[in-house]
């Protein structure tokens, strides 16, 4: 029972956070956010004109009751109908989520493996490769995602470079076409993620490498590879797991806004951007709801998983 209460406490706190996220987003969207009515307005429109257009379109005036209604609709899994896309929001999400996951999930897995590989390699104390790895990771981290995207596109997709892949688009009908269209976005995302996480994982592993129990294992004649992979990595599981679960929903479900926009991938990032520009507030709120729900659920699962991995950690 003593383990049950902290978990319940954590779950209830996460539920409260979820509710406040929905209400905050709904409030912002309602009073300051994009609205379909704004597509029919010029820059210096008066409040009376806005209200007239909203009433012509059948929109309710901005109010707190409207915010509550939106949150209630979302909680009852009825996000409504998108006027811009002329389709129910649930159908839009059903189409966007697979496209996003098919790019971001492989890149997330590859990125994490790349980061772990870099971190493990640097634990071997070879001076030159370590310096090289340090230089590459800091350079890639300093490169903005946009620069990386443009450079990768020039190198892989244009005639100036290799020209192996299409410049942009998403026309998937079999695995080969998937590889054709998704390879470059996956490469960019995984490189970015790998180089971002490598220093974090490296720091956790190096801390373990200098610990007493590692020295004891080394004195007992254990090989370095065995020590790093079997003992040190297991010890670092808690920070690594918390890093991974923290970014998982953002990367996998949130998609990458820039990547999806640039490569024209019809995922959640592109849908969110189009909804923002076109004033499709219902879709935007639904996307926020999904991502926040996944983030908070994963956080709860991680808390329980960490408790199982290391029972000494206080869950509350």
């Amino acid at each position: 029972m003593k383990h049950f209460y902290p978990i319940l406490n954590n779950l209830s706190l996460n539920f409260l956070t979820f509710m406040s996220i929905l209400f905050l987003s709904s409030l912002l969207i309602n009073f300051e956010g994009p609205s379909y009515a704004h597509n029919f307005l010029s820059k210096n429109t008066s409040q009376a004109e806005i209200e007239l257009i909203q009433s012509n379109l059948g929109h309710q005036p901005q109010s707190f009751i409207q915010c509550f209604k939106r949150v209630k609709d979302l909680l009852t899994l009825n996000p409504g109908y998108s006027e811009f896309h002329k389709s129910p929001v649930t159908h839009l999400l059903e189409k966007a989520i697979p496209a996003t996951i098919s790019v971001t999930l492989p890149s997330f897995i590859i990125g994490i493996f790349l980061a772990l590989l870099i971190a493990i390699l640097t634990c071997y104390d070879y001076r030159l490769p370590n310096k090289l790895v340090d230089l590459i990771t800091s350079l890639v981290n300093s490169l903005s995602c946009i620069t990386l995207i443009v450079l990768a596109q020039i190198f892989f997709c244009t005639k100036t470079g290799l020209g192996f892949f299409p410049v942009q688009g998403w026309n998937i009908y079999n695995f080969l076409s998937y590889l054709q269209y998704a390879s470059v976005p996956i490469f960019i995302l995984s490189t970015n993620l790998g180089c971002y996480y490598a220093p974090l994982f490296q720091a956790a592993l190096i801390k373990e490498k200098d610990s007493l129990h590692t020295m004891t294992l080394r004195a007992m004649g254990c090989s370095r590879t065995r020590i790093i992979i079997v003992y040190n990595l297991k010890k670092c599981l808690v920070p690594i797991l918390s890093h991974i679960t923290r970014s998982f929903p953002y990367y996998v479900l949130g998609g990458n806004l820039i990547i999806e926009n640039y490569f024209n991938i019809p995922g959640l990032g592109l849908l969110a951007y189009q909804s923002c520009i076109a004033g499709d507030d219902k879709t935007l709120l639904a996307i926020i709801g999904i991502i926040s729900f996944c983030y908070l659920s994963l956080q709860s699962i991680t808390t329980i998983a960490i408790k199982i991995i290391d029972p000494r950690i206080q869950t509350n």
Partner: protein
Amino acid sequence: MNSKSPNLFPTTLIIMIAFYLILTLSVRFNFMAQDWNQITANQYASCSLTYPLGTNFNGQNILSRVLQSLTNSLDHALAVTFFCCLIASLLAFLVGLRKKKRLYQLTIFLSNTLDTIPIYLLIFCYYQAIRLDPHKLYYIIIAVFWTHPFKSLVNQVLTVASHNDILAAKHIGCSNFRILYKYILPKMYLPLLAEANLVFISTLKLETSLSFIGIYNDKTINLGKMLAEAVGDLLYEKYNNLIASSFALTLLIYSLTLLKNIFETIRKKKA
């Protein structure tokens, strides 16, 4: 982690700050880059003494545009960082020194809520306000980014506030302000600088990304907008714009990362 020698600290810091200060001041006082929005030459003019980096599609000087963009980005990031750190440190000192559990829980809850929503989605929620007044973009960035320095600083303040010297000062009747000024602030400036650096980098990256996709102040220029222009130039196989803007952005972020590493090294050494 990159571990740079702390001996590098004064030299690197002075060179970097001097470089960016001279650059910003020169642009702000109109010594350089005044012609960033003027059409002064032919389309895609090649590099020359007058146009060291050539011109863009509209015949505008790329070097002037890069310098103006860098200055604008630095100005915005500096303002956002200042206000974020101010809010974070005030709240952290208030929560850490007063030790009010409810206030602590409330601020942590608020920061967790703000952290859970991806920042770009929150900005989209506020899109209409930004469209009418582009400066409102920075209000929302400040409203979200104070959480990161706050979480770090509040832990630091709580740790420092439980030290023996501070407990002793409290017992002999020192006021909270005196404790803050005399004992806590000297121990907080390095963590604060490190956090400020992180906020600075995040703001730069976020502003660039948002400008790249088209959410920007259309009266000024920044690096994201330049990169978006550079993508258009690729169709004509012209790379000057891309190289100049990418290099400027990378150099700026790299130097800030270097600075962050120096702060961390000193912090670890002191700890």
